[in-house]
């Protein structure tokens, strides 16, 4: 990654801004009906590029809330007011606010921790969904979030008993028509489910639905069922856009990571609060 890009990324992280990405933020082309979702030769839906092309996904909207239309911060660096739309337990609400009181200084993302669950799909530099029917698994490869991968088993296996809690948990999937449905358990309780610091516990059970609406658009729906942190299951989702002609690139978070220092060190007040 070149220096300018790195600098831009570091600055965006430090300022806590939505990370502007040239691909995601390109001006909308004149309205033209999108092409239908591509298919493989055998007719199954293709979550990647059409044959002979390249491309990957980057989220367009990514607020993990019940009502995205009403999303606004309560005040600078405080948890969003409509977090109350979420059936959040009192301790989890207080923890979310506490994290904001600390200017999100304990943000795991800035410490190069991997992010599983919905936050992986929020990844600012994009991801690929690679369907490998011959191996009976789907891989999700992410550029940011520690440049790591998630495996979704499609062979009908069940979740193992006594899973060691982990960042990505254990994911099994199946096809519901053209929709990839993924069921996951086995998460640790240290991940933040979004940039606002929404907590989850090791009781988290996720059901995610990936649908390629057309060539350019992936609809992501997620049901968050965590009796440890919420009073009932709730749903959210994002719209994810196709970036044609580009490939995932190397991103090593640890290379020159100054974000934690900037957020909690001496630079904090000069760089994180306008």
């Amino acid at each position, binding site marked *: *990654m*070149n220096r300018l*890009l790195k600098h831009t990324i570091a600055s965006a992280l430090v300022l806590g801004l939505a990370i502007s990405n040239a691909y995601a933020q390109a001006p909308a082309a004149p309205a033209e009906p999108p092409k239908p979702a591509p298919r*493989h030769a055998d007719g199954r839906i293709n979550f*990647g*590029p059409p*044959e002979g092309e*390249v491309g990957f996904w980057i989220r367009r909207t990514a607020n993990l809330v019940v009502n995205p239309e009403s999303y606004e911060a309560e005040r600078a660096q405080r948890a969003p007011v409509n977090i109350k739309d979420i059936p959040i337990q009192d301790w989890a609400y207080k923890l979310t606010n506490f994290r904001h009181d600390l200017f999100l200084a304990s943000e795991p993302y800035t*410490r*190069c*921790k*991997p992010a599983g669950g919905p936050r992986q799909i929020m990844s600012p530099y994009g991801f690929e969904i*690679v369907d*490998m029917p*011959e*191996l*009976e698994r789907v*891989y999700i*490869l992410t550029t940011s979030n*520690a*440049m*790591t*991968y998630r*495996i979704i088993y499609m062979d009908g296996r069940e979740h193992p008993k006594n899973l*060691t809690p*982990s*960042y*990505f948990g254990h994911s099994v999937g199946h096809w519901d028509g053209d929709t990839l449905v993924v069921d996951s358990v086995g998460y640790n309780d240290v991940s933040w489910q979004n940039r606002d610091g929404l907590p989850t516990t090791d009781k988290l059970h996720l059901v995610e639905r990936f649908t390629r609406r057309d060539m350019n658009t992936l609809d992501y729906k997620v049901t968050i069922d965590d009796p440890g942190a919420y009073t009932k299951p709730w749903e959210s989702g994002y719209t994810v856009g196709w970036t044609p002609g580009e*490939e*995932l*690139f*190397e991103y*090593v978070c*640890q*290379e020159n990571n100054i974000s*934690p220092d900037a957020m909690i060190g001496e630079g904090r007040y000069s760089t994180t609060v306008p």
Partner: protein
Amino acid sequence: MNRRVASLCASGRACEILAALLVFGASATFAHHPVGAKFDEGKVTTLSGRVTAVDWANPHVHVFFNVKAADGSESNWATELASVVELDGSGWAADTIEPGDTITVNGPVALNGSRQIWGTTVQLDGKTVFTVAEDVFSSRGEAVSGPTPRWPDKQPRLGPPKGETGYWALPSKTSLMEDGATVAVDKYGVLANMNDAAKVAPFQKWALDLYSLRQRNWLKDDPMFLNCIPPAGPRQFQQPFGFQLVEDRDRSRIFVLLSGGNSNWRFIYTDDRTATGQVTGNDDNPLFYGHSLAKWEGDTMVVTTTGFNEGFWFSNGGLPHTNKLTLTERFTRSDLGTLHYAVTVDDPGAYTRPWTSSWDLHWVAGQELPEFYCQDNRQ
């Protein structure tokens, strides 16, 4: 020779033997870092106290406990142990020790004077716990034999046979060394005899000096240990946790999925592209994993990689490289259970001529890569 060892011996051969004994003796596990890089093996002590917390996370599990001093005051100590992957694999669990238990820990204390102790032995109610099985890695899966699995077009498969699972691990060597050299090193790449340094590879003078310095410092400046910098280059194929090769033939590329380091992925492209920088050209984009292009020569996949940065150690043991490095790696699956790997290191910035190092990797059948993140319990 390490400072603290130097104080225990006069000079020369005796020191080296002592250093080697210390390294070999203390390294009970293939942990994320050599024990001697963080803990002072000259200061071994025994501490007892009540457990306050257990942090069951990679790369090192930590058990915190309160130690009572003679004056009755208590201080909280951290015992550092092997990884979750190793401890889980040896039959231990996050609740083997629980807050409130009283433990006795024997081991070396931290070099930097902080209240940390390496748990050479940990005892609970008189029983030793958290031992790492000698065969925690080698016992994975069952021994496999059989012909090289192949695709319908007869090209060897580098991943699992159809309908099966597994991954590559158990490298027969764990640090780079020119083929034909006979030099004793431990599993971290630490030389048994410092006088052997020049035999390891055809170093340029500065590179030999730097390699020797890193060795004398017991690899404590390893950026993989300090900052979770990726074990890129040949080093990714010498990590204890293994890797998987996933052939995405529809897209003419192979994913290398790593379990060591930070469980990174990278691509090896098998189409006819040329190596270009990912944003504005090679010069502008020195990378950790570089740009990798592959072609097949008979049953061998030959991968050429350029575009490296200098921010990582490309081998256990601390052999230097520069951004002039070109790697030519040859992957040959000679049968179901064996992947022969040979790498030619061509780095006119650090070596006097190209040289080759090779080893075998073994197929761990029926198992999934462990989930391991170096970054897990680091702040």
